[in-house]
């Protein structure tokens, strides 16, 4: 008698079952709201009336003609790109350090991961205090050490006004984003470095390869695909983020730190124009999609090679 094959013996069935929870999660938490946002963007919905009356491209055209939107879009792209450069540099350095053997490595790793593990709103309240226009502890230290004050090297004021001047407010926001996102990128890169077969590294050592040569010609090329994934995660998270600027600057001074997520919220929820808020947020989608495709292709090619 031949035993009947159990459905769970099929790789396709089991694979689909394992994939189902993740797919369901994506459809419910990401897919449906995304489709709703698209529908809102082509309608005239307000916060008080979400009946979908189709208005075509009217919202998108109105948003594009809005000078503030164009500035906000440019700011979002600039903040994201500058942050990624620093995140990539710091994450690589830290990943290499944390994959070495040294005393206190686990504690150092634990401390380092905290910025990413801390709820972002809570962390931003901490930074809001650190960068306060009047009571910043950083300013206090600079004042005590002579960098600020009447004869100060940096300024004759008692404060640098971190979140109040155009340049410093932008630097502050980028710095905080780098602080927040670097741990995630580092952890991903550490996983990549740890997965490099030791025989390759041993062979390089036997062949007399020094640290920099091993790093540049062996380690970095091998972790390039995973580095691209880390960068993609970081970019997408940052591009859509509004919490950092909502807590720190609310987009100010003037519009210098206003980003797409925040502007979409201000127009759509606080201003009541839900349709236009949705349109603003969706402007990011084609750009992010193009970046994602490009980066995933790059990662794929690097992996094959």
């Amino acid at each position, binding site marked *: 008698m031949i035993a009947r094959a159990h459905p769970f013996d099929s790789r396709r069935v089991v694979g689909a079952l394992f994939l189902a929870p993740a797919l369901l999660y994506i459809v419910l938490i990401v897919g449906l709201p995304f489709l709703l946002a698209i529908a809102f963007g082509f309608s*005239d919905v*307000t*916060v*008080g*009336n*979400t009946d979908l009356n189709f208005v075509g491209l009217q919202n998108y055209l*109105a948003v594009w*003609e*809005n*000078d*503030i939107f164009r500035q906000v879009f440019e700011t979002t792209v600039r903040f994201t790109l500058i942050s990624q450069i620093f995140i990539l540099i710091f994450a690589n350095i830290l990943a290499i350090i944390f994959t070495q053997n040294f005393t206190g490595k686990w504690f150092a790793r634990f401390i380092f991961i905290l910025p990413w593990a801390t709820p972002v709103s809570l962390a931003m309240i901490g930074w*809001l205090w650190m960068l306060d*226009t*009047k*009571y910043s502890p950083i300013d206090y230290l600079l004042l005590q050490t002579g960098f600020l004050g009447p004869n100060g090297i940096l300024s004759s*004021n008692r*404060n640098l*006004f*971190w*979140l*109040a*001047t*155009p340049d410093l*407010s932008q630097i502050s926001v980028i710095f905080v984003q780098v602080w927040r996102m670097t741990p995630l990128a580092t952890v991903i890169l550490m996983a990549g470095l740890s997965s490099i077969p030791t025989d390759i590294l041993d062979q390089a050592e036997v062949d007399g390869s020094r640290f920099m040569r091993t790093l540049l010609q062996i380690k970095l090329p091998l972790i390039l695909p995973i580095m691209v994934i880390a960068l993609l995660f970081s970019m997408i998270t940052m591009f859509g983020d509004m919490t950092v600027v909502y807590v720190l*600057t*609310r*987009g*100010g*001074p*003037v*519009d210098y730190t*206003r980003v797409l997520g925040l502007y979409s919220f*201000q*127009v759509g*929820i*606080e*201003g*009541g*124009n*839900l349709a*236009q808020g949705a349109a603003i947020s969706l402007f990011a989608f084609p750009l992010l999609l193009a970046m994602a495709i490009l980066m995933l292709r790059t990662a794929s090619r690097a992996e094959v090679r």
Partner: protein
Amino acid sequence: MKRAIRLLIVFSMLAALGVGISAQGDYADGTEISLLQWSHFVPRYDEWFDAYAAEWGEANGVGVTVDHVNFTELFSTLAAEIDAGEGHTIVEVLFSPASFIDGLHDLRDINEQAMENWGERAATCQAASYLPVVDTYYAYTHGYVPDPGDYDIALWTDAGYPEGPKTYDDLLEGGRAIFESTGIPVGLGMSPELDSRMANRAAIWSFGGSVQDENENVVLNSEETIAAVKYLAQLQNEAMTDEVFGWTAASNNQGLIAGELSYILNSNSAYRSLQKIDEAAAANIGFTAALEGPAGAWASSHVWQIYVIPNYVEGDELAAAKQFILDHSANYSDATYYSELYNFPCHPSTVPELDGWLEEDPWGSMPPNKFEVLKTVNDWSVHLGFPGVTNPAISQVFAESVIPNMTAKVALGELSAEEAVAQAHERVEEIFSEWRAKGMVGGG
């Protein structure tokens, strides 16, 4: 016991006024109402309110629950509940929710009942409840918060203004003198936050400018607005520091409490906070009415206490909610008292004790008549859409911080006043056009 007696007196007064309180049992068994409102700046108010709501529920056979959240969450929660078609029975917001109008019940009946019972209401409240273009009362505004000037008495006395600045010229001259001699600046914000939005509007109105006229036409780009913006930029350059470009809503409170600002525009919140930690320092804080400008003296109310009932509320729940709102207004003496004179009544006749309290603060101010200047508040306290109504376009202009950003650009030297006002006018026109197309703004 005291609370029970007070409640009894209130209900007796209501009966005498013909409000028509429903006797217990008028609502179907199991009728429940729920309220969502902010965690009041004065915790004592919430303690009083929660107990009052529970007692009202017991007296009327209605289950009452009250949820308090941070005020920044009110609009997003209301939007979510309207979209979901379920949620709280009554939601209290602090700024006009005119853009929610399609999702809200028309409260004409209780607004008219209130005016019949207690006479005309403060104009600042009326304009934050009624949208003329659709002839609808989308809300019931029960209270508002004055936004007087708070000044450091010692500093301004030394500068030759013992009663604080009375005009915008005084503010510039005196504020500059204080800044030059002590390094302590004036504190009018120019940042994308609530207090900055109010302070900038107050100056523009007092110089004769405004975002819209009384017929809801955009008139921002005017000589008067340009003059106000030039004034504010000069004030910032000569009597303030750059900190005002990065302020949060709490920054001016913190600065005044720390003795590091000579003058701010705010509710009594900064003063009350100081009173609780340093009575002597609090005694050094004085209040001024709206400053006189070339065209008058106007200031925005600080916030409004606005009740709305979403469309999904029906039947006995709706009836009970309306009754609760009216009864609450009838009991406004307690609301004003327990908010430590933060809440002012939209119907002044509901708080006959108010003038007496302003002459002698029941919460121990020194001197006791510190708030006497607020007796004239209804002469100068206006709303965001002044001299028109607060419509959805005005709310969006407010949310986008168009006005403080316009001023900040000039103060930072990025644009001339003429350029900044023209640029802001263009954005305001866009916003008005969009809402006008939806039929929710008049004029055009």
